[in-house]
């Protein structure tokens, strides 16, 4: 940003605290607050604060979408396809429509309509009803008669790649791009069921491999993982003549408002999207979804509010998943460890949708002049995949980080020493140092060195994730005449504690305590906030929250300045008081200053400005900051070579999220990332029946998940990493915390048993087969 009269030059703390802080000069817009000092010098930011909604959540008072009950509300249910691939020749809704409890029926798969008549996965929506009770709606679904013409189907990715495989899509129905861009941009070729390749390259890979002293090559597989949000996808749609109000369990209220306005031809100001309590999303609640559109359609037709809550089976089969992948990695290196070439080939499947790429780990994690990748999406007759916590990078790291360990062993270099050589990130260098000390890396023995039947091992893996920012993020801060303070935005809190960090940032500016700030979020009647995905909510909303609070404080200072007979510029807000700088005796309470306001309320709105140092890349409403979020995780495992059971005993996670705002909540989120990664590594697996195309474990007991008894001792360490990029310099943590866990466990398992596992999940059967104790299943 040029110094053009709209900015001023400021000096910001810069660097990693434990390494040593320097200063960086930045151009700051004139109407933004001065640089924030390091956390140690702050009263509220960087300190653990209890969640602002904690009391409501532990008493059951929080209203989640599923708890919404509007007068006259109807219950919607969706009739779903009972075949994985079929043309609907006829559908008879007359008996359902006559059911006394039914208010309206919607046919979604219309016979003869080329766009909708074919269903392509077991569970695809066919029709929907709205009735006076959930039970009546269920009864009505059973009265709908559907005449299916069964079509050939394929639910196995390898089979779907064969030339003679049944085609999941035709040219018209095959999706051409993916909103997340993983990896398929528009215009990629379609061959049979394969969309792609999406390619990326730099340097000369052939020459790079020719220069290599050694080449490691491996094929890695990852399974399909489902999100398993505890709160199911849910919506209450209320279509009225004067506009549409929607309560929806969503990660992006403002985005859903846009989707609704476009889908139903409404102006933005006639669409209101609300979410109060939000019971987890992990990527699966990023958009309106088919169920959302259906609920609105039913409400419009029935002239009544309609509630749709997916049941657990619908959740598991239709509401999104992390795509399964196959990856072949080749890595060439010189004897000293320096990389000469990386080649990545991948095929992944997101069912009937796109988005099965393996991300950017192979491209970006390590220094290597020569790189090539070819990533493919393979369609199968299964429910659509979607973004899930670090989409692409979590499966990608499973391959890449094991390949790097394999290379280290081949070169007889310690895995951490090799990473020190090929990883230029100062953040991860420091994280490796801290983590190695904490886990006791020096205890690590040679692979398979334990003599007993239970063998222990230690492993490490790293993560790589973009520092995403939503530029279209706004926030309002209000001060009332009685001293009450509110912070408002449409941003939602999906469990990460967004509301609490907003309260902390505002409290820091105003010299108040976070619990004195009322947080009003999750409603598009407030200024439009960012989505809670891409680990971007904190990075996007805390800078405008601080700026808005700072602006409103300047308004308050005007009143106080008069009363204190001082200049506004000489006032500071601290510990509930407004005082003259260096003359603490001349002061008044925050409330007294507020009581002097000439209007009942003053307010300021701020929007996310560009990063002070500029962006790596801007893409419409979103941008990538000029830094990456690094993390390093260490796992210690015990493998029982008689039973094949892997126990993760301990995980040490060293993570970077820029400036941590609330270390307590951040630690909680890292726990979640690790446990989801551990569960991915050892247990979770969506299993489709090859004969019927149906998911055989669409629940929460046969779909295996790590629980309390599988939870290891977890130690979380956070860097403080200051770059002077925004009014808060804060970034996210949700996704970075999830990427490294599975490969760290994989590398630890290798260290324990001396056999490398390349397929997830590492079930007892997989372990025993790898040890040659039982025949391999595939």
């Amino acid at each position: 940003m040029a110094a053009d009269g709209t900015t001023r030059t400021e000096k910001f703390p810069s660097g990693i605290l434990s390494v040593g802080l320097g200063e960086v000069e930045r151009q700051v817009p004139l109407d933004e607050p001065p640089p924030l000092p390091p956390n140690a010098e702050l009263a509220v930011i960087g300190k653990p604060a209890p969640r602002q909604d904690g009391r409501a959540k532990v008493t059951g008072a929080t209203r989640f979408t599923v708890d919404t009950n509007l007068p006259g509300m109807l219950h919607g249910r969706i009739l779903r396809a009972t075949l994985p691939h079929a043309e609907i020749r006829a559908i008879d809704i007359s008996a359902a429509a006559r059911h006394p409890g039914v208010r309206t029926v919607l046919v979604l798969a219309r016979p003869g309509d080329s766009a909708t008549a074919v269903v392509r996965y077991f569970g695809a929506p066919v029709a929907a009803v709205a009735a006076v009770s959930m039970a009546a709606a269920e009864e009505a679904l059973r009265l709908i008669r559907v005449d299916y013409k069964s079509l050939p189907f394929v639910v196995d990715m390898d089979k779907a790649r064969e030339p003679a495989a049944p085609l999941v899509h035709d040219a018209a129905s095959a999706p051409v791009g993916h909103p997340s861009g993983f990896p398929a941009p528009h215009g990629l070729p379609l061959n049979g069921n394969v969309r792609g390749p999406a390619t990326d390259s730099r340097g000369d890979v052939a020459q790079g491999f020719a220069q290599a002293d050694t080449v490691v090559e491996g094929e890695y597989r990852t399974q399909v993982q489902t999100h398993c949000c505890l709160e199911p996808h849910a919506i209450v749609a209320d279509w009225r003549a004067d506009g549409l109000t929607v309560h929806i369990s969503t990660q992006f209220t403002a985005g859903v408002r846009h989707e609704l306005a476009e889908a139903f031809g409404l102006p933005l100001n006639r669409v209101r999207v609300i979410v109060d309590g939000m019971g987890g999303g992990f990527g699966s609640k990023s958009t309106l979804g088919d169920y959302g559109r259906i609920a609105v359609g039913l409400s419009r037709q029935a002239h009544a509010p309609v509630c749709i809550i997916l049941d657990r089976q619908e959740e598991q089969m239709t509401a999104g998943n992390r795509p399964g992948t196959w990856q072949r990695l080749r890595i060439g290196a010189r004897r000293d460890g320096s990389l000469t070439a990386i080649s990545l080939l991948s095929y992944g499947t997101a069912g009937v949708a796109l988005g099965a790429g393996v991300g950017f780990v192979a491209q970006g994690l390590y220094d290597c002049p020569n790189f090539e990748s070819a990533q493919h999406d393979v369609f199968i007759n299964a429910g659509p995949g979607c973004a899930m916590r670090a989409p692409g990078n979590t499966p990608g790291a499973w391959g890449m980080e094991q390949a790097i360990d394999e290379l280290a062993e081949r070169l007889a270099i310690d895995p951490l020493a090799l990473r020190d050589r090929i990883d230029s990130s100062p953040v991860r260098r420091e994280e490796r140092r801290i983590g190695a000390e904490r886990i006791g890396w020096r205890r690590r023995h040679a692979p398979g060195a334990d003599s007993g039947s239970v063998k222990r091992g230690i492993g490490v893996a790293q993560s790589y994730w973009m520092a995403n920012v939503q530029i279209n993020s706004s926030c309002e801060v209000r001060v009332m005449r009685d001293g009450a303070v509110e912070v408002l935005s449409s941003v939602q809190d999906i469990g990460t504690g967004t509301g609490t960090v907003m309260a902390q940032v505002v409290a820091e500016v105003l010299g108040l305590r976070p619990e004195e700030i009322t947080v009003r979020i999750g409603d598009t009647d407030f200024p439009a906030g960012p989505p809670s995905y891409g680990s971007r909510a904190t990075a996007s909303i805390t800078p405008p929250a601080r700026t808005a609070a700072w602006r409103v404080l300047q308004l308050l200072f005007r009143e106080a300045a008069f009363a204190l007979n001082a200049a506004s510029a000489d006032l500071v807000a601290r510990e509930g008081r407004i005082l003259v700088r260096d003359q603490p005796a001349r002061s008044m309470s925050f409330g007294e200053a507020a009581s002097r306001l000439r209007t009942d309320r003053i307010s300021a709105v701020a929007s996310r400005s560009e990063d002070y140092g500029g962006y790596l890349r801007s893409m419409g409403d979103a941008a990538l900051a000029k830094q990456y979020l690094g993390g390093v995780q260490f796992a210690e495992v015990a493998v029982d070579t008689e039973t094949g059971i892997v126990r993760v005993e301990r995980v040490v996670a060293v993570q970077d999220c820029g400036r941590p705002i609330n270390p307590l909540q951040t630690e909680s989120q890292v726990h979640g990332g690790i446990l989801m990664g551990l569960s991915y590594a050892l247990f979770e697996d969506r299993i489709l029946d090859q004969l019927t195309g149906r998911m055989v474990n669409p629940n929460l007991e046969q779909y295996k998940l790590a629980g309390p008894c599988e939870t290891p001792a977890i130690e979380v360490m956070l860097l403080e990493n200051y770059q002077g990029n925004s009014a808060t310099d804060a970034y996210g943590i949700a996704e970075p915390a999830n990427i490294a866990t599975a490969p760290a466990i994989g590398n630890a398992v290798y260290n324990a048993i001396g056999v490398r596992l390349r397929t997830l999940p590492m079930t007892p059967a997989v372990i025993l087969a790898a040890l040659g104790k039982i025949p391999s299943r595939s």
Partner: protein
Amino acid sequence: MIDATSALMGQAEAAESGGPPVAGPAPVPITLKINGITRTLQVEPRMTLAEVLRGLLGLTGTKIACNRGACSACTVWLDGVAVCSCMMLAIEVGARNVTTIEGLASGSQLHPVQAAFIEHDALQCGFCTPGLVMSCAALLEHTPDPTPGDVQAAISGHFCRCGTYPHVVSATLAAAKARKA
């Protein structure tokens, strides 16, 4: 274990006529003691306790997440014992005292487990939290001095996708200490 006073067993007419006792499908009257208050209401015999609490009584703190006893989000107490309310019919409750998350605190005074959950950040999205609080509070009723393993065992039927288990364990241990102090 159906209580003798339950509506299911109370269909005396049906029993006298020689057939098995029949209830429903029409609503039948039942009396429930919930959080110390006696409520008489008409419920369809097919309704689970969780559905009645949430739907008819508006006690939405009890959550339904799997609806088949796999995740324990719907945990309430029956005479102090933690049970899945999605796994029993409302007409089976009989004379037993039902305690829900709304009835755990004493007025504005939080139960020590609730207070500790807030202090230790043993919640994230909060959807599974009421169930976890009920199980951890039940644990302290019969095991006032639990080990971490006791807490893990007590919540082993619960599922939390946000990964709050480590903080749930530390919170419950802290609550046990606070109760004794």
